[in-house]
C-alpha cells in the first residue's frame, strides 16, 4: 500500500509556472545583472562598516556631477589637467583632489585581453568607495587602509563572455597627488593581511579561497600580481589571477576570473600600465 503522504504530494508535481519558465538565456542574463548589483551592494556595505557618513544622496550627487575635462589623457603626475567645471564637494567646499576625469582610453580593450569572445561592458552605478581588494578576506576595515580616503576618482568596466558570463572586472582609480604609492602599500598590506587565510566567499557558494601575492614591480611604476585559489571539493583547486598596476597616482586593477596563466596575467598588466601613460 502506498504511503498516503506520498500520494497526496504527487498532486504537486508537474505544475506549470504562471508565466512559463524563462529561457536559459534570460536566466543567464539575470545572473549577470545580479553581479552588477552585488558590486553596488559591496560599495554600500563598506560605507556601513566604516561607519562613514556618506549618504546615498551624496553618492548620487557625485555621480550626477562628474568632472568634465577637455584633456583626453590626464597627467599621471598629479598635475591638474584643464577642466571646464571643477566639481564642488557635497559640503560646498572646494574638493582637495584635482578633478580630472578618467578616460575610456585607459581601459583595456577586448583585443588587449586576447580573447575573441570577450565583451567589455559599460560602467554602472557602484558605491564610490568600492575597492577591489575589500572582500578578498574578512574582516575588512576601510580605516586600516588609509590611502582609500584619498581616492579622488574611480571608474570600472566588466568583461563578459559572449555567452553572458561575467569574466572579470577592471577598476581604475585616481588618487590625490602623491598618494598612488601609498595605495599600493595598502594593496600589499591587504594581501599580506589575507595571506594564508582560507576565507569563505559568498560570491562563489561559500567555498574557501586563498589569495597569494605572487610578484611585484613588473609593470608601470609599480605592479602586483596576486593569485586566487578556490579550493573545490575533492581537493581540487581552481586558480585565477588579479593584477594591479600604478602609473603616478593612477591605479588600474584587473581581475581575470578565467585567466589561469600567470604569463598572460603579467602581459595584461603591462598593457594596462601602457594605457595609463
Amino acid at each position, binding site marked *: 500500500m502506498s504511503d498516503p503522504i506520498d500520494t*497526496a504530494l504527487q498532486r*504537486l508535481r508537474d505544475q506549470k509556472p504562471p508565466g512559463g519558465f524563462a529561457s536559459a538565456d534570460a*536566466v543567464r542574463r539575470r545572473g549577470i545583472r545580479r553581479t552588477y548589483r552585488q558590486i553596488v551592494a559591496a560599495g554600500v556595505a563598506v560605507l556601513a562598516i566604516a561607519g562613514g557618513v556618506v549618504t546615498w544622496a551624496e553618492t548620487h550627487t557625485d555621480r550626477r556631477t562628474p568632472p568634465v575635462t577637455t584633456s583626453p589623457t590626464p597627467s599621471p603626475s598629479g598635475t591638474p589637467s584643464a577642466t571646464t567645471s571643477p566639481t564642488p564637494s557635497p559640503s560646498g567646499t572646494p574638493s582637495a583632489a584635482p578633478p580630472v576625469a578618467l578616460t575610456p582610453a585607459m581601459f583595456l580593450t577586448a583585443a588587449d585581453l586576447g580573447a575573441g569572445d570577450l565583451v567589455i561592458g559599460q560602467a554602472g552605478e557602484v558605491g564610490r568607495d568600492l575597492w577591489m581588494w575589500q572582500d578578498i578576506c574578512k574582516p575588512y576595515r576601510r580605516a586600516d587602509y588609509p590611502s582609500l580616503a584619498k581616492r579622488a576618482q574611480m571608474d570600472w568596466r566588466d568583461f563578459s*563572455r559572449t555567452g553572458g558570463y561575467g569574466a572579470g572586472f577592471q577598476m581604475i582609480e585616481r588618487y590625490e597627488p602623491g598618494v598612488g604609492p601609498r595605495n599600493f602599500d595598502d594593496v600589499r598590506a591587504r594581501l599580506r593581511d589575507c595571506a594564508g587565510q582560507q576565507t569563505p566567499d559568498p*560570491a562563489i557558494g561559500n567555498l574557501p579561497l586563498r589569495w597569494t601575492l605572487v610578484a611585484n614591480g613588473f609593470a608601470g611604476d609599480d605592479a602586483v600580481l596576486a593569485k586566487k585559489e578556490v579550493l573545490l571539493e575533492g581537493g581540487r583547486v581552481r586558480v585565477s589571477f588579479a593584477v594591479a598596476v600604478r602609473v603616478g597616482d593612477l591605479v588600474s586593477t584587473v581581475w581575470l576570473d578565467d585567466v589561469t596563466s600567470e604569463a598572460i596575467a603579467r602581459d595584461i598588466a603591462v598593457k594596462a600600465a601602457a594605457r595609463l601613460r
Partner: protein
Amino acid sequence: MPDSDSFDAFYRGTRQRLFDCLVGITGNRAEAQDVVHEAYARAWQRWQTVGDYADPEAWVRTVARRLAVSQWRRARSALRAHRRTGPTPPVRGPDVELMTLVAALGKLPMKQREAIVLHHLMGLPVTQIAREIGAPEGTVKARLARGRQALAALLAVDLPEESHV
C-alpha cells in the same frame, strides 16, 4: 571558461523538479517561479564552480529553499499586517484538492514543511536532507514524523502504523 551549453542543459533538465519543490514550500506558483529563476541565475554566476559539483542540483535546491524561506517570512509578516486591516476574501481555484493540499502544507511549521517536501515530493533520503539543511538526521526524522502526523490530520488521511522513516 563557463560552459553555457552545460548550464542550459542543467537548467532545462532540473527546473521542473525545483519548481515542484518550491510550490510545495511556498504554496504559491508565482513565488515559486521567481525563486526558481533567481536560484538558477545565482548558479550561472558561479557555474565555473557549481558546474563541477557532483550534485549541482542540490546546490541550486539549497539556494532556492533559502530564498523561498526568506520570502515566506517576509510574506508572513505582510500577511499579519494585512490581517489587521480585515480578512481576505476566499479565492476559489480550479483544483480544490490541490488547494486543500497547499493549504494544509501551509499550516505546517516551515521546517516540517521543508522536510516533508524534500522527502515525499523530491524523494530525498533522510541523510541527504540532513546534509542539505544542516541538521542532524534525528532532527530531520522528528520533523518528518511530526509533519506527517499534522498533514495526515489536516488532509483527513490515515497513516500506516509503521513509521515511514
